[in-house]
Each structure stands twice: as structure tokens, then as C-alpha cells.
């Protein structure tokens, strides 16, 4: 898992996630929903990540699993950016 990807994810979460805990202090496997991310905050996070990585999450990734943890988000992003890099 790329450190740079995870760093950007953490910053987006800090800016948009409305978390009760600092995004920079969460463990990569901590639940973001348990940390306070609301339903609409997850939308703002999604859109900000799309801007930051110049990607669009496909419909199949619009599920709770993908946005549950920093690890899960980072894995989804690396799948999307890696797929574009080899296209």
C-alpha cells in the first residue's frame, strides 16, 4: 500500500470526513463510521478523493466496505489508478 496514497486519503478525511478523531491518528484499519463519518460526509470524502486522484469511483465501489477504513479506501484507489496506468 503506497504511503503517498494513504497520506492523501488521511488529508482528505481530515478536511471532509467530519471525524471525531484526527484522521492522522487513526489506525489504517479503524472504522471511519465509528470515528464519526456521517453518510453525507462520506459523499464529500468520495468527491474530494476523485478530485485528488483524478478518478471516478464506479458504481460497483459505492458500498460501505470501500469507505469503511483508510486501508479499504487506499486499496480501491490503487486499483483504480493502477488500472488506468496500464490501460
Amino acid at each position, binding site marked *: 500500500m503506497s504511503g503517498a496514497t494513504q497520506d492523501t486519503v488521511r488529508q482528505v478525511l481530515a478536511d471532509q470526513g467530519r471525524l471525531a478523531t484526527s484522521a492522522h491518528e487513526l489506525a489504517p484499519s479503524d472504522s471511519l463510521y465509528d470515528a464519526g463519518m456521517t453518510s453525507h460526509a462520506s459523499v464529500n470524502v468520495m468527491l474530494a478523493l476523485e478530485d485528488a486522484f483524478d478518478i471516478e469511483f464506479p458504481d460497483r465501489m459505492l*458500498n460501505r466496505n470501500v469507505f469503511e477504513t483508510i486501508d479499504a479506501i487506499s486499496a480501491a484507489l490503487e486499483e483504480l489508478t493502477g488500472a488506468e496506468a496500464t490501460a
Partner: protein
Amino acid sequence: MTLAVGIDLVDVGDVRSALSEHGSRYLGRIYTPREVAESTTGSAVDPRRLAARFAAKEAVMKTLAPAPGDAVPWAQIGVHQPAAAAPWVQLTGAAQALARRRGIEELALSISSERERAAAVAVARGREPQ
């Protein structure tokens, strides 16, 4: 008979931020064209009305009880509330398929909003799930 209830609360400021930062991309990903039209007066989209619809979408989503891996795009839960009429729900795609699997045959909604918050409750009723 199956019975399920969902509730959600939305901060209008979050909707206002999304509109300001992402504009039409936000609207297109989350809302149906009809929802956007119903939330527009003149040329201005009202974030409070969008927030009410988003709260209702999430309340309905909770009655559908998707598994963590189930993908249900927000725009496939359409929340409509023509002026002075009761709100109603239109499900399409994955949302509609999930409702069928859950045995849901009726959905009822109630929506409330004030300047900076919107809330909604959804009740789903139907036969036992397949």
C-alpha cells in the same frame, strides 16, 4: 410480513459545501434530475431541500439494509416531494433489486428540515424476504 424503519439526519452545511466545491458533479452523482428540479427555485438550487432529500435517501437505504459489499448508488433512490404534497420514493437499479430481495412492497416517508438540519424517517413494509 416484514417491517423495517430507517432514520437519518443531515447537516445542510455539508450539502452547501458539496455544492460549492463540486457543483454539477455532486448533483449528478447523488440526485436524479427530477430531485434537482424540485430543489431549484429560479436558477438557484436550495441546499436545504437537497439535504432533506439526502436524509430521506439514507433513511430508505437503512430500510433496504444492504450488506457491506452491496453497491447502491444514491441516485437509484429517488425522493420526490412536489410542492404541498407528501414525499414518495422511486427505486431503480440495484436499489429496486435489493427491495425485491427484502420483500419490500411499500415505502412511506416523513421529512423535516430547519435552516441548518434536515431529517427523515422511512418505513418499509412487505412480505417475508426471499
